[in-house]
């Protein structure tokens, strides 16, 4: 029996942990620092790639993703060094996707051509809003005009450019969002990520929310309406949702993210990066040191990894289900059973079908439109014993 990860492929995630400023909603591992010795970071990434590659020899690499933080603060040379190192250790798939997250500022747009030359073939831009007032509220440093200009530069350099928007913002009406989404769709090429604002613990928004601040957030009913509207409008424009918050022209999906949602293997390097790696028939969850300084030091002494846990078959099955049901294409039931060696609760499945939350073709469970918007409950229901 082939190892489970082969159903989805193998990817490399590279985490760049620095930002120019911390956004108040962001709970990612990002840090603001004045001085960054990029050559030292490049060397550290090289070491890590070498270390992981030694454990996964001969694997075909389907994707590389530079995430952050703000990876568009990396020098193109740094990016090139990482891509070259990966190429030296793993055979690249013919259609390898190499993505980089970028902020839409003019300074960063100046580096796009350099990234293209380094081998990057897809840009994901954090535009977040198409009105300046909301951009300021979200703590973004760019304006709409700058974002549009940067987006045009990106388009001139890359075939594949996606961008992110955050909606269900403070004081945003359904009509506001409909208008903004309309504008976004005139810009969009073939991929769009549309996230509802979520208030996370440990962020500036989280603190304000707990303190009773952050007024004007939409009610559950309004955000549900916004979500539904988003699904409908994007589908009408030929960009149907292929995942909870991701929309693409069929075939233009982010291959990297599909590897996560289809529960493939991925090596995660850089501070705080997570990975899933199948080694010697056992799948492991890996985690790197979170603080940039600690990570650099750890890499110098041999490995940036600070955690490696074997994942039980049952837990793998649950992870696969949690991720897989986010996709329109759904969950391969045989694959789930192969992993868990237990049948997925038939009574619960049946009751969810009756409620119209899921469809069960016998080979796949897919989540319906109604189900997708309450996916956490659907997952909890399927997995509860």
């Amino acid at each position, binding site marked *: 029996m082939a190892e489970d990860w082969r159903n989805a492929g193998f*990817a490399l*995630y590279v985490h760049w942990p620095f930002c120019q400023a911390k956004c108040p909603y962001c709970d*990612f591992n990002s840090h603001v620092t004045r001085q960054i010795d990029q050559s030292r970071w490049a060397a550290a990434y090289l070491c890590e790639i070498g270390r992981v590659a030694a454990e996964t020899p001969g694997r075909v690499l389907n994707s590389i993703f530079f995430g952050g933080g703000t990876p568009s603060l990396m020098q193109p040379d740094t990016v090139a060094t990482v891509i070259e190192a990966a190429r030296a250790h793993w055979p690249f798939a013919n259609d390898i996707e190499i993505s980089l997250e970028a902020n839409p500022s003019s300074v960063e747009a100046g580096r796009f051509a350099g990234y293209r030359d380094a081998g990057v073939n897809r840009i994901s831009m954090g535009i977040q809003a198409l009105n300046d007032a909301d951009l300021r509220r979200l703590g973004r440093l760019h304006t709409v005009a700058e974002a549009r200009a940067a987006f045009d530069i990106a388009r001139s350099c890359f075939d594949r450019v996606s961008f992110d928007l955050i909606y269900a913002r403070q004081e945003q009406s359904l009509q506001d969002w409909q208008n903004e989404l309309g504008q976004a769709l005139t810009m969009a090429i073939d991929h769009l990520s549309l*996230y*509802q*604002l*979520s208030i996370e613990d440990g962020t500036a928004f989280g603190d304000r929310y707990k303190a009773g601040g952050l007024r004007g957030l939409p009610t*559950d*009913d309004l*955000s*549900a309406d916004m*979500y539904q509207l988003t699904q409908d409008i994007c589908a009408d424009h030929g960009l149907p949702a292929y995942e*909870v*918050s991701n929309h693409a022209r069929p075939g233009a999906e982010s291959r990297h*993210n599909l*590897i*996560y949602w289809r529960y493939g293997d*991925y090596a*995660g390097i850089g501070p*705080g*990066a*997570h*990975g*899933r790696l199948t080694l010697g028939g056992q799948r492991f*969850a890996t*985690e790197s040191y979170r603080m940039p300084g600690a990570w650099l030091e750890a890499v110098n002494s041999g490995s940036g990894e600070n955690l490696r846990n074997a994942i039980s078959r049952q*837990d793998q099955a*649950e*992870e696969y289900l*949690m*991720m897989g049901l*986010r996709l329109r294409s759904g969950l391969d039931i045989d694959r789930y059973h192969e992993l868990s060696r237990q049948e997925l609760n038939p009574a619960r499945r049946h*009751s*969810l079908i009756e*409620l119209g*939350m899921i469809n069960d073709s016998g080979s796949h469970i897919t989540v319906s439109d109604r189900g*997708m*918007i*309450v*996916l*956490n*409950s*659907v*997952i*909890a*229901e399927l*997995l*509860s*014993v």
Partner: protein
Amino acid sequence: MTELAHIRNFSIVAHIDHGKSTLADRLIQSTGTVQDREMKEQMLDAMDIERERGITIKANTVRIDYTADDGQAYVLNLIDTPGHVDFAYEVSRSMRAVEGSLLVVDSSQGVEAQTLANVYQAIDADHEIVPVLNKIDLPAADCDRVAEQIEDVIGIDASGAIRVSAKTGVGIHETLEAIVKYLPAPTGTREAPLKAMLVDSWYDAYLGVIVLVRIMDGVLKKNDRIRMMQNGSVHQVDRIGVFRPAMAEIDELGPGEIGFLTASIKQVRDTRVGDTITHEKKGCEQPLPGFKPSQPVVFCGLFPADASEFEDLRQAIERLALNDASFSYEMETSAALGFGFRCGFLGLLHLEVIRDRIEREYGIDLITTAPSVVYHIHMRDGQMTELHNPADMPDLTHVSHVEEPRIKATILVPDDYLGDVLKLCQDRRGIQMDLTYVGGRAMVVYDLPLNEVVFDFYDRLKSVTKGYASFDYQLTEYRQDHLVKMSVLVNDEPVDALSMMVHRDRAEARGRVMVEKLKDLIPRHMFKIPIQAAIGGKVVARETLSAMRKDVTAKCYGGDVSRKKKLLEKQKKGKKKMRQFGRVEIPQEAFISALKMDD
């Protein structure tokens, strides 16, 4: 063995927070009974829960040696009685064991309902009463007014009331002198057959049951064979002693003395409060009057939140019952909650204390169903059965009529809130018996059904009077009324644990409150849920909980899997706190909260 003339036995009567425990502490401390370094706050309240809530559950006693200003050495025995209405019988026994009381009144607050209830017990026991005005250090203290109030309301002379600050120590010496001077010495005959009152008892892991006794006549010695007159059991005394307040063994206890005995008794159940202890041979002929077996007044179901903890719960309940004869239990099965116990308590405080102890001392999460009183169900065939659980209400066609317990409630309240209190009592089917004014405050006496009071009456009273009302009650009689069982259906499934007995005229209103509450308490599901209250087949109130609109994580990438997994585990744990009814999950707290009435 102390001469009768040199013994003074007394208790302290006070409303909660009027400083009873602090005064007791001060008396103990100032006589050197306890070294300063051993002193801790509220010396006599042994249990954490007693300390925390500032209440006394078990009678405690301390023997104080005091050399009075007359140069004579006296033995002062203080019995600290439970102050709460739930323990009225226990209080009455403690009162019979002493000859006098200190009536402690907060000089900034005045007389409260609980003070009244307890002082009447003291008067019933023919006590000499010494009024003590406490907390005179407070700026709001008004001794003259409060003394006047004591005279008006209670009808005892308060002109010589001792002015005390237990906090600063002012008046403590005067209090001790007053005990010696004004309280009578006990009487009794050393040569008579042994006659001792069982004042209280509790279980000690090392010594077995410890029995607190007051010797009326005769002498109790180590190795004596004694007989409990109510149940006839015979035991050999293996230890005799007094509390200082630590246990100190002595050789014998004579007339007028208060102390403890142990006799390898295994269960507190074998020692009934109020029983008379005598010698096996040549015992006394007549037991002391006034013994009553303890009668649970309030019942509720206790279920383990985690069904796998049923056996742990059984053990916890059995062990608590060993130490508490007034707490009864039997196994109960609920369709909704699984296996648990139907437990009987002396009152709501007693219920809460037992529940807290199970949760805290045994670490078991509990689901507590709504408290219910004991109804008398008179069947058409003339038989009468006691109904402890509304879910067990027999088929109406066999029922002739239902009787419920009534109480006489006494409430003292500042005039400003009188209207709210009257409304509350009327709403709870109360019948006004009396309304008088007592030094600027109204004293209302109501005849109320106990079932309207057991749940949240006291909370409501506190809330409508901003905490200024005080309340006490006593059970009066069983009376027939139009009582019916109301059931609750969630998503068309009856939830037995939410059934309740209500007055027919109040059924719609209670049903409405209940379904509205449940609508807020039950989390939204993926589907809409009808919630109904019904009497027999007739729906009296209905709400619909609409379906959940949105529950989805916007972002979930490679780095989020572990986090989401943890969230899911947490959710699974949370589900353990929910109970499944058909497709609906009801959180545990709903079983209590749904029955609270925010009139």
